[in-house]
């Protein structure tokens, strides 16, 4: 059984079909890239999978269960975590609390435990603190735990978003342009980080990215979208030699000239 199976997913915004008949099957442990020109509907697919917007039609089956109609927080708790294209950290919270806030989803305690700081609360909080430190170590931010998230440099903010997503103990991680705005050295270390967390936390990763270096390097399989539709699918090599893909990216003339 595939971990995630998206069938015939469509989304209309008014008269505009943003996503049309989107199909995707992901097996446990895969890294799949989702690429396409700006406005192709990639982020809309993420928003549909995470339940932020309801699909017009189609189904999203995760571990044998249809997610359509569930509120975002329930989908997240089932094991789908994401990062955002335009970083959405809890900016005025400390780096540590950005991670801790999400750790509670699986490590909760009751209202009265919290109000009275009961022994159960103390025990859980110690676990949460240790776990948060561990996750911050993974992304190399353990020394900045006190600082407000907004004070981090751009690349670190992206990494903190990944740590925060990992706090959810996801099975499927959706990364929306994780390398946007990074310099080549940061991209290299990000590539390594994604490989590392994929193995360490046994993740399945679906990532949107424009930096082809990272995509070609990481992904075993690439799905290309344009105008809401899948126009090609295959290994990095197949996709990068597909004339339809080149046309979508560079325009019709580019392909003709090449021939």
């Amino acid at each position, binding site marked *: 059984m595939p971990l995630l199976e998206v069938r015939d997913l469509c989304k209309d915004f008014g008269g505009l079909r943003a996503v049309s008949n989107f199909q995707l099957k992901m097996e446990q442990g895969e890294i799949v890239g989702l690429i396409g020109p700006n406005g192709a509907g990639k982020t809309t697919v993420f928003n549909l999978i*995470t*339940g*932020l917007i309801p699909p017009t039609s189609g189904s999203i089956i995760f571990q044998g269960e249809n997610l359509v109609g569930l*509120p*975002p*927080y329930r989908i*997240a*708790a089932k094991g789908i*975590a*994401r990062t*955002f294209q335009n970083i*959405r*950290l*809890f*900016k*005025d*919270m*400390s780096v*540590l*609390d950005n991670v*801790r*806030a*999400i750790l*509670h*989803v699986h490590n*909760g*305690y009751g*209202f009265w*435990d*919290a*109000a*009275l*700081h009961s022994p159960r*609360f*103390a025990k859980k*909080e*110690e676990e949460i*603190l*240790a776990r948060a430190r561990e996750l911050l170590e993974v992304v190399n931010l353990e020394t900045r*735990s*006190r600082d*407000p998230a907004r004070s981090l440099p751009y690349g670190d903010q992206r990494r903190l978003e990944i740590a*925060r*997503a990992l*706090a*959810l103990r996801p099975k499927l991680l959706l990364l929306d342009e994780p390398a946007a705005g990074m310099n080549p050295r940061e991209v290299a270390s990000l590539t390594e980080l994604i490989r590392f967390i994929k193995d360490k936390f046994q993740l399945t990763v679906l990532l949107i990215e424009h930096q082809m270096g990272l995509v070609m390097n990481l992904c075993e399989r690439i799905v290309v979208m344009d105008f809401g539709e899948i126009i090609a699918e295959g290994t990095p090599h197949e996709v990068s030699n597909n004339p339809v893909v080149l046309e979508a990216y560079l325009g019709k003339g580019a392909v003709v000239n090449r021939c």
Partner: protein
Amino acid sequence: MERYFCTLLRRRERVRLALLGGLLASLYGALKLLSLAGLINEYWQRVLDQALITTIGALGLSIIYGFAGQFSLGHAAFYGIGAYTAGIIGKVWSQGSITFFLLALLAGTLAASFIAFLLGIPILRLRSDYLGIATLGFGVIVRVALENSNRFYPPLGGATGMTGIPQVANFDWIFWFTVGTLILVCNLIASSYGRAWLSIREDEMAADTLGINTTRYKITAFVLGCGLAGLAGGLYAYRYPYLHPSSFDFLKSFDFLLIVVLGGLGSISGTVVTAICWVFLLEGLRIILGQAFVDWRGVIYAVILIVTVLLRPQGLFSGKEWRLLFPSRDQDGTWGKEGKHASLRG
């Protein structure tokens, strides 16, 4: 190493609790001594009690607006609901017994919470400004209902106000209720609840997508904050012999809002200090301006708010939180990192 660290933290936590307890007890003792020595007369004792009651209500709004980021302009309505609920129980059934007083406080708190719950489910979907308008409207409804309450039940007094509630609440009760509230609020802020509220204030969509049940936490914050307003109202009813709908109108809501904004959004220490200073400032102005104070009040409020928002939009206490209030474990937490004012949000 980890175990050693935990033991160390627990020891520091015990020291913190002992220090905090000692400080609060000595503060109580000092105030009692001053009042016994005759240095605090009946008038200033009333002002001090009002300051503490306002603190309880303001802490409620601090949770709702300062931490959870839900802009409420109707806080005084819940203060009024608590006051009238507790008051009518005292007036009709009790002859000043302590048990009834405590039961009435509980009833006032629960009534405010319950109405907040019913109101919160539909209106907490709204975002900042819209939520402000909805709560403002609710405040007006409550005031009008209180003014006409004698038509449903004459002892409520309607527009002439309600008298005849036994004056059971003294400084001791009010002081320890304030301390209890303060500890309860600090404990919650330093827990998953506080972090969830902050995450909603910071970015509701991200919180939702990352597994936080934002609706539930927003309603919890609203119900709890309004419940505290109800508790404050109950104490008010048993401390001051006269309840009138105009004590619970929009201007009073604005009082609470000013305290929370001036103190710095997301700062408990700021809320407490500003609440106390605010009440004393108003009394001071009342003495200086005399009868003219009532006319000038609106102007003074507006000037103070404009000046603060221009000069110090993050509030007086942003960036500082009294560390003793929060567990040692939490020193890497978000304490004192200020929030933004609703209108400044993008």
